């Protein structure tokens, strides 16, 4: 979750009083985070840009309704998640519940294959841009619902309960999907950061 602006409360108040520059200041602080969130959930840059634009406009129009009992960023993320889920629903990539939903306690059926400790920390092993791109790529190996859950919980730091509520899912479903997502992403990253990694970084990241 990004750091907030020093005098954020007064900037929000100014935006609520109709100061459009104040709103742009708020948005500039968070736009790249919202774009990344949109990209993680929808999986493509065009939709990510649409999510950013639509969520920003909705927030601008509704800023007077912002109560101030959560951070502005949290409020903006909620709006962006709803826009992004709308995109997934349109593409029939999101169903509220389905028969293939894992049941509680099934996470253990995931057997780790890559068992190898990591060498250098990822932050030391590659440049920031390379790492950012790699993370954006590996997260797309998860199905849309799992990567949305993982993004909200582990990237945006919402609690399990908040994530479940935001997505209209049960807590056991969120927990099980989160566990599987973490284990799958661990496998993927071990291919790059494992001590004996076969490919330290893919060619496209060099």
């Amino acid at each position, binding site marked *: 979750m*990004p750091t907030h602006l020093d005098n954020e409360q007064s900037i929000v108040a100014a935006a609520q009083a*109709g100061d*459009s520059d104040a709103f*742009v200041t708020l*948005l500039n602080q968070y*736009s*790249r*985070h919202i*774009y*990344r969130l949109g990209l993680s959930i929808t999986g493509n840059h065009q939709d990510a*840009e649409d999510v*950013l*634009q639509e969520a*920003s*406009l909705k927030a*601008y*129009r*509704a*800023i*007077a309704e912002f109560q101030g009992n959560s951070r502005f960023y949290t409020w903006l993320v909620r709006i962006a998640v709803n826009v992004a889920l709308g995109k997934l629903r349109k593409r029939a990539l999101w169903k509220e519940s389905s028969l293939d939903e894992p049941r509680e*306690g099934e*996470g*253990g059926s*995931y*057997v*780790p294959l890559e*068992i*190898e*400790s*990591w060498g250098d*920390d*990822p*932050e030391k092993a590659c440049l*920031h*841009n390379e*790492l*950012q791109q790699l*993370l954006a790529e590996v*997260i797309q190996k998860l199905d849309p619902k799992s990567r949305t859950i*993982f993004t909200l919980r*582990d*990237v945006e*730091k919402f609690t399990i309960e908040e994530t479940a509520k935001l997505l209209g899912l049960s807590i056991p479903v969120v*927990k099980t999907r*989160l*566990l599987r997502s*973490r*284990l799958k*992403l*661990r496998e993927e*990253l*071990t291919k790059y*950061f494992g001590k004996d990694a076969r490919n330290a970084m893919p060619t496209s990241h060099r």
Partner: protein
Amino acid sequence: MRCRQVIDKISEYIDGELDPELVRELERHLQHCEDCRVVVDTTRKTVEVFCHTEPSPLPNDVRERLNQMFRHSFRKGEPN
């Protein structure tokens, strides 16, 4: 505790949300199981790297189109 149960509990363990009795059982297992130690450690690192990595700056063209959209909205006098 067996390896499979450790895998099942990894999320709650690294989030600090596991019952203390289960934490003791899990850590007893880790003391003698190198594979599970590696999986727990690298799962924790996986979560950390996603949470710590800042997003790249917005691409210039995306930023420009966002600004354009706002200039248009402001001209129309939204939201008032």
